[in-house]
């Protein structure tokens, strides 16, 4: 990994600059993308693209002058663009109605962090729109550059590759746009066009290929998946003295639990995964895991709508095979974009054996998921807490001052804002919000979403994470925040380096890691360490005085919910 610039250097070079600016406004067309190591994601392997049956797979490198585009690539792009214009009202409309008011410009974390004007959402869209005008509008054909149109040439393709992989499809711009123009939609379609001529990135296509074959992005095979989970169960036993043996691929259970595979595999996600298992065990939940559908995430979403559908199809297929009543989904961001806004449309209706989810513990019927038959674990746990079904000891998290990072998709493609906060307030006593315009529906991306969480572009990721990192630093200085909770597996992978860079000393944790730390389980040994096996600052008292312990527990409940609003 290349050396990162200092904070000051990075901040200085994040100031906007406007190369080739002219009063006629198309100066940007004259600046061409430059590819140097660190500025681009590695291309997908030829073999991966072939295995997935992607069109026009070929060898190429961004640093080469010639990208080996297939014969007749202009025609391929034109036809693919025409096809999308027929299929998507959104695309047609977003190509037509932008007035370039610029409200989106400084809403984008990539623009704020790089200062590159082509990272303004409006200009990112113009990269595509300029070709749309030329190819699909009479005025654009006649007026040429004056009309803001330009012909396709290889440098346009290169520019698309550069900038549509500097967008994390976070939709923050779409919130501020007076017409709701959604750059995520434009980026998704632009990436589809690039895939048509055989251009994809390794960090997206490899997980897609793995997921297709082994059931998860990481390519973990079934026996290994089971082994890893069993290792985590050993850790749980060390910490709590409780032995858990989660069911795999078993038929006849009520619930299928699906979460991103990243949580099975890497720190700090594994602690969240342990949290799930502990919670389910404590509840006596009738569930099963699946190795076939062992991935909640869906990098197909970052490839094409068809790939998204293909990867997602396993969820309902497995729910049908196992005969479960409903699906419980783990903490993940883009996974929930797919489940909330796409799954029912692309792969629904849900199999006949499934019913509207009902919490077996509280009896709450989740009517709002009556068609998809899938709910988010934060919704499930918030309901448990509301009905006082968990014995919680938030003081175990007293060494933490926690803030909450809303992930883009649960925030702006779902609206799940309060549920995780309700859970947080119940499981830790010190919860502080980051500044108002960096959270909830206005949240900033971690900077590495939509398949950009790859090592080779680390500096770019730190730049894109500038607004988030800066907000975190702010509450670290002001309130002594030392932990950032999130409900997204990509966040759990990408925020630790971001925090190390922008706010050293802040750890990143999943929501259910904190839940499990606070969860008092039946028959557990007094807890002296947290799920990371670090000594608790406020360990449980050594037993024999259960009454006293219970009293402490109820006391904690009273204190929970105290919260500092930071505006």
């Amino acid at each position, binding site marked *: 990994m290349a050396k990162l610039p200092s904070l000051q250097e990075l901040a200085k070079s994040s100031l906007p600059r406007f190369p080739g600016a002219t009063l006629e406004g198309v100066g940007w067309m004259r600046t061409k993308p430059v590819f140097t190591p660190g500025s681009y994601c590695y291309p997908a392997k030829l073999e991966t693209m072939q295995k997935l049956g992607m069109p026009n797979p070929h060898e190429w490198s961004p640093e080469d002058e010639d990208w080996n585009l297939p014969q007749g690539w202009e025609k391929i792009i034109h036809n693919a663009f025409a096809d999308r214009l027929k299929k998507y009202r959104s695309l047609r409309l977003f190509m037509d109605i932008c007035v370039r008011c610029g409200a989106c410009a400084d809403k984008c974390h990539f623009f704020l962090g790089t200062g590159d004007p082509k990272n303004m959402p409006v200009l990112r869209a113009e990269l595509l729109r300029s070709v749309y005008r030329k190819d699909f509008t009479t005025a654009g054909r006649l007026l040429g550059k004056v009309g803001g149109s330009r012909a396709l040439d290889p440098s346009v393709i290169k520019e698309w590759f550069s900038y549509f992989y500097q967008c994390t499809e976070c939709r923050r711009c779409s919130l501020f746009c*007076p017409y709701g123009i959604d750059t995520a939609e434009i980026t998704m379609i632009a990436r589809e066009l690039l895939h048509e001529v055989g251009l994809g990135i390794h960090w997206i296509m490899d997980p897609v290929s793995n997921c297709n074959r082994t059931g998860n992005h990481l390519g973990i095979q079934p026996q290994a998946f089971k082994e890893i989970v069993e290792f985590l169960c050993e850790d749980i036993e060390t910490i709590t003295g409780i032995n858990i043996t989660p069911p795999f691929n078993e038929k006849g259970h009520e619930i299928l639990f699906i979460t991103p595979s990243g949580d099975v595999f890497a720190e700090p996600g594994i602690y969240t995964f342990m949290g799930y298992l502990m919670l389910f065990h404590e509840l006596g939940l009738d569930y099963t895991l699946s190795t076939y559908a062992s991935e909640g995430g869906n990098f197909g979403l970052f490839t094409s709508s068809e790939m998204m559908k293909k990867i997602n199809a396993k969820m309902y297929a497995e729910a049908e095979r196992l005969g479960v009543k409903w699906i419980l989904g783990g903490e993940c961001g883009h996974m929930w974009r797919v489940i909330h806004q796409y799954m029912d449309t692309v792969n629904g209706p849900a199999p006949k054996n499934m019913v509207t989810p009902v919490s077996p513990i509280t009896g709450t019927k989740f009517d709002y998921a009556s068609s998809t038959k899938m709910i988010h674990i934060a919704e499930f746990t918030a309901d448990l807490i509301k009905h006082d079904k968990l014995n919680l000891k938030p003081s175990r998290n007293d060494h933490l001052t926690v803030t909450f990072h809303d992930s883009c998709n649960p925030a702006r493609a779902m609206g799940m804002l309060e549920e995780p906060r309700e859970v947080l307030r119940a499981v830790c006593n010190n919860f502080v919000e980051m500044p108002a315009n960096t959270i909830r529906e206005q949240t900033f991306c971690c900077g590495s979403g939509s398949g950009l969480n790859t090592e080779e572009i680390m500096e770019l990721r730190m730049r894109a994470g500038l607004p988030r990192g800066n907000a975190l630093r702010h509450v670290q200085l002001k309130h002594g925040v030392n932990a950032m909770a999130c409900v997204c597996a990509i966040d759990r992978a990408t925020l630790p380096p971001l925090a190390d860079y922008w706010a050293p000393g802040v750890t990143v944790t999943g929501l259910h890691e904190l839940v499990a730390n606070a969860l008092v389980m039946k028959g557990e040994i007094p807890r002296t360490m947290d799920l990371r096996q670090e000594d608790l600052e406020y360990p449980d008292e050594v037993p024999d005085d259960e009454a006293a312990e219970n009293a402490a527990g109820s006391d904690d409940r009273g204190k929970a919910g105290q919260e500092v609003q930071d505006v």
Partner: protein
Amino acid sequence: MAFSLMMALSIAVIAGVGAGLGLEYFFGIVLPLAAVLVFIAGVVWRVIGWARAPVPFSIATTGGQQKSLPWIKPACLDAPYTSVGVIGRMVLEAVTFRSLFRNTAAEMRGEGDEPRLIYWSSKWLWAFGLLFHAAFFLVLFRHFRFFLEPVPFFIPWIENLDGLMQFGVPRFFMSDALLLAAVLFLLLRRLKDPKLRYISLPADYFPLFVLLGIIISGIALRYFAKSDVASIKVLTMGLVTLNPVLPEGVGTTFFVHLTFVSVLLIYLPFSKLMHMAGIFFSPTRNMPCNTRQYRHINPWNPPKKYRTYAEYEDEFREVMAEAGLPLEKQPEEEK
């Protein structure tokens, strides 16, 4: 920008000279009628184009809390769950520019050694954008005095309200000044902000100059180069009733004004100004956030193609059996 300005100025010159050369019939009757025709046909054509394109996915941008658990208060307007909520969101979007109201500005500032990104609320664009649209529609409504006979009762009301700040004759309409101020703001903003200047196309300046042309010629007509209002009304009523007449005493300024309006009408359907209709089609705003309760249908939903469990088990059967995972088919059965 220069190109757009030249285009707009040449419109004024062509109309002025043309009318002076005795082409009044063209500029006073043929062009406006053609413009209205192009406008209507163009808008209908564009709207049909959008309406016919399918909406494959339900992709509302949620601007607030979803409707989920019964005790959590949902954001009825920002994450609308029902059609009523969606209509509310759309109306507020169209009438009050609600999304733009959120606007913030961000700036990087150093604080000692620490770089700090500062945000503040920035409502200028919202305020002047809203002012422009409101003043524009007010002025448009006032013009119905010229298109309807008898003049409807509400027009004098609007005029009274608009002319409250009366000093001199003819009565001064506030909307005229506000409209001019708003358009000038929108123009200066494009020129002053380097971000805006960088993204602005001739297609962004041109409508502003045409609007300026309409406003300036209109103000001139009313307050300076006073024209015979009665004969203008004869002309406009002739146009409205499709019974065109060309009365005497309609000055050159009027033809310039009318030509600018005609150009705007012709230009509008083929430009970004179609946002006025387009906003109502925007799927991130006009769709309900109830996608887990009601299935949205994609008319071109392709058939399912995925790796089935059977294929998966076929590849991994041996290792799965060894790991003690349940199987549909035992390894022995295979042989």
